């Protein structure tokens, strides 16, 4: 019990500390890279755009409880023209292999260790009474169903009180030490799902203890169920999902993008065809016979045109990747039918703004920003520079400071919940199913 509490406190402390350092590093990097951006010499706007810029994810209080995927994806993204950037500098690259065994956080304590603790409390709750011979005595006083209910509630309430205090302490500590966005409804939702999870495990423990008479067998069965649910299933589901809906490699991705930009998305509209068509349209529209006579810099215009086209191509291929990831996630979601752990893990990540959807949203927002930023620089070139001055035109100094860093906002529950409907359903199914199972065996107190 004490070891469990100590472990919980270490996890809490570690996560707060980690988020704090992430936050500090982010602030420093943000300031440094901003300074670098502003200190650029006055160069051609397109070249300046190539210097690139960063987008950062805003801190969120619940990250201190459950950092979710942000551990592996990081919280910043680097952007420059002509290319979207994948998650750069994922945490995985700078961690040791030990990170694959799980990341120590309050969420891990509640998802993995808490059920184990419930098992230790419940494995001999009913069959232990049987062995001591006190069960028949109890049965002469109350019904078996009431005994099951009382035992379940006793264990549940004990762990629930721990859970509640733990969650409150985590959030308070996070508010004080790290700060960031706080969403009360999300925190309340996290409390609800973990309570349900806790209840599920209490019921599993009592169910097995009532179903299996031999204490040695009941503890073995419970430990195996725990390992199956929290260790095996998550791995199997992720690996099966990867086998079925595999991701393209970066090489394939880049090749497809390059091919499509060169030959056109439909394969019959090459880059030079597109440029000639745009030129012809513009000449017709402005009734001039040469691009140099256009009222704006044609090079800037065509650059922006090709930027827009490449954005379209990137969108197509990025969507393929995002869709594959989402399909993988769906496979895992359905696996939560076999493992309440997967359900609560995904729900908790969603509420903490660290789920797959919020990571994808982060990428997409960053991409929107990138386009705006690159377009801004290209427009500057189009409107302010003359044709053929690529080597000599320089951007005005206030242009740099006019470009703002992107701070990506966190989403509320109403945004994240629709992505985890399956998990919500499954957790509910587990709770209801287990209650029914307990009620059913509660009819007669006989081991078989």
């Amino acid at each position: 019990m004490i070891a469990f509490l100590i472990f919980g406190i270490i996890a809490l402390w570690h996560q707060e500390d980690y988020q704090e350092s992430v936050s500090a590093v982010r602030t420093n990097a943000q300031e440094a890279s901003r300074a670098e951006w502003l200190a650029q010499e006055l160069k051609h706007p397109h070249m300046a755009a190539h210097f690139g810029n960063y987008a950062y994810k805003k801190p969120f209080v619940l990250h201190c409880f459950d950092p979710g995927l942000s551990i592996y994806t990081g919280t910043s993204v680097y952007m420059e023209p002509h290319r979207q950037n994948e998650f750069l500098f994922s945490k995985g690259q700078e961690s040791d292999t030990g990170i694959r065994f799980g990341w120590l956080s309050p969420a891990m304590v509640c998802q993995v260790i808490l059920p184990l603790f419930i098992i230790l409390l419940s494995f001999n709750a009913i069959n232990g009474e049987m062995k001591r011979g006190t069960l028949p005595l109890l049965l002469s006083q109350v019904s078996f169903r009431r005994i099951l209910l009382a035992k379940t509630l006793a264990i549940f309430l004990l762990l629930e009180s721990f859970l509640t205090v733990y969650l409150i302490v985590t959030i308070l500590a996070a508010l004080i030490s790290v700060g960031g966005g706080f969403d009360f409804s999300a925190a309340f939702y996290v409390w609800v799902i973990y309570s349900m999870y806790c209840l599920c495990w209490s019921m599993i423990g009592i169910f097995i203890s009532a179903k299996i008479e031999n204490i040695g067998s009941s503890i073995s069965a419970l430990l195996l169920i725990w390992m199956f649910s929290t260790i095996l299933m998550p791995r199997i589901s992720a690996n099966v999902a990867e086998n079925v809906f595999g991701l393209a490699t970066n090489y394939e991705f880049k090749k497809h993008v390059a091919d499509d930009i060169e030959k056109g998305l439909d394969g019959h509209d090459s880059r030079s065809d597109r440029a000639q068509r745009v030129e012809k349209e513009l000449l017709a529209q402005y009734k001039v016979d040469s691009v140099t006579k256009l009222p704006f810099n044609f090079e800037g215009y065509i650059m922006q045109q090709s930027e827009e086209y490449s954005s379209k191509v990137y969108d197509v291929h990025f969507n393929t990747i995002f869709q594959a990831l989402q399909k993988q996630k769906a496979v895992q979601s359905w696996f939560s039918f076999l493992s309440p752990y997967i359900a609560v893990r995904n729900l908790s990540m969603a509420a903490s703004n660290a789920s797959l959807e919020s990571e994808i949203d982060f990428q997409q927002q960053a991409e929107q920003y990138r386009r705006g930023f690159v377009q801004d620089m290209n427009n500057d070139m189009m409107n302010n520079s003359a044709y053929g001055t690529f080597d000599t035109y320089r951007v005005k100094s206030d242009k740099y400071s006019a470009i703002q860093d992107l701070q990506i906002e966190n989403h509320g529950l109403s945004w994240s919940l629709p992505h985890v409907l399956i998990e919500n359903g499954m957790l509910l199914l587990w709770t209801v199913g287990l209650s029914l199972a307990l009620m059913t065996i509660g009819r007669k107190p006989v081991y078989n």
Partner: protein
Amino acid sequence: MRDQILFSKLVKMQYWLFVKQKTHWLLLFVFFVTGLYGLYQGFAFKGKQIATINAFRDEKVGAINEMVKGFHADTTTVAGKEAYQKVTTLILANWYTILPAYKIPNTTALFAIGQGDVFPYYYTVKLESFFMQLFKQNEITNPLRALAGHFDVSFWVVLLLPLFIIVLSFNILSSELDNGNWRLINSQGVSQKRWVTSKIVLVASVTGVLLIVVWLSGLVINYVSFSQPPTLNDFIFFTGATIYLTLWMSVLFLINALSLNTSASALYSGVLWVLICIVSPALTTAIIEKTVAVDNTVVSRMSRRPQGSKFEDDAFGIKTIRQIGVLRPQYRHATVTPKSKGFSFTVYCAYHELLDDSNKVVVRQYFDNIEKRQRLTNASGFINPAAAMDGIFAGLAHNDAEANHRFIWGMMDFHQAFHDALFPAIFFDRKLSESDFKKLPVQKQASFQHVPVWVLIHLMSFIVIILLLFRWANTKFKNRLNV
């Protein structure tokens, strides 16, 4: 009166008892299938890497060969002239000369994916700043899989086989004590220690057979699918797995020696599994994260492209060329001047080279810290055997940070050799010739068999723990009577 039954005979009888139980066959089947699935994951992962490398290399090498043909192009045609210019003009040639660098997964990579999914294993190398290119290129990593972990043979050995051992041997003695058979067995002349030892030997043999079958299948797959004969690393992987599983056998031997009842044995072994496989790795990782700080922002900004009007500046250019002459004596007498046609490009190249040189220290520091984290994990065997062994396996599979960094430093040498081929033309202000391109380096693959000495030291430390545990169990058996 007969003599005591021979130990080998006792093991044989335990085997007979073992195979009579249907649930054992089911268990064996389940664990065998999960082992094969682990092998399949490694196979799929490695296969995809190799296929990607092949396609990548063929494309890049083909492009260079195609480009070099431009020297002999018929310059009277438009296309021919274009091709000729593409290979002879400095800036164009620089833009289009893209060399492939890659790291072919070694034989043991079939067994341990490790960090292989987060480190890029193929890079394009251009004349520009090495670190800029390095930190821009990445593999698309699957965060969902990073969260869940791989289901490879390493996982099977490190987390699942111990479970198999626990299920088969947590109650060797306690089940007989509980059901009352023990007194009968003992009256037949079998002591507790012999009974437990014989069963442990049996379980070890069964586990060993599982391991050998999966391992041998892996070697066959490597040979048949990837034409890779077994390497030293494979044998050390097998040895490591055997030692690790022996550690678990000694733990179970001790649990039986403590003579607990069945539920206490189950509890002890279950909790021990959780401690070794979940709690200890998570705590150790947290401590390592805390003590060895790694800040990627110091290197991530290196991916910004250094460019701009300063390269047009003559004074800056002359200064830069002089600096490169100090760093690289072979260009001390560079003949390029502000009047040369490609001067600003030469300055650009020189600046990138100087930048790489000055950034090297920071990058090395960054890499060193990452490697330090891995080394700490690998060395934590005494308190953290599961993660330590997993890290050692990833190291043997060259799928850890150290191997990745070896690859990167090798690639930096390759980048330098690339410079050595094309820089003379750039710095001595002459046209690129075919002989320059003939000097283009081919990237050398690191040996598949690199095994750091510390691996052997760590394995020895495991053996020490095993011996200590067996000793402890032995004194437990000795100090107790047979009831």
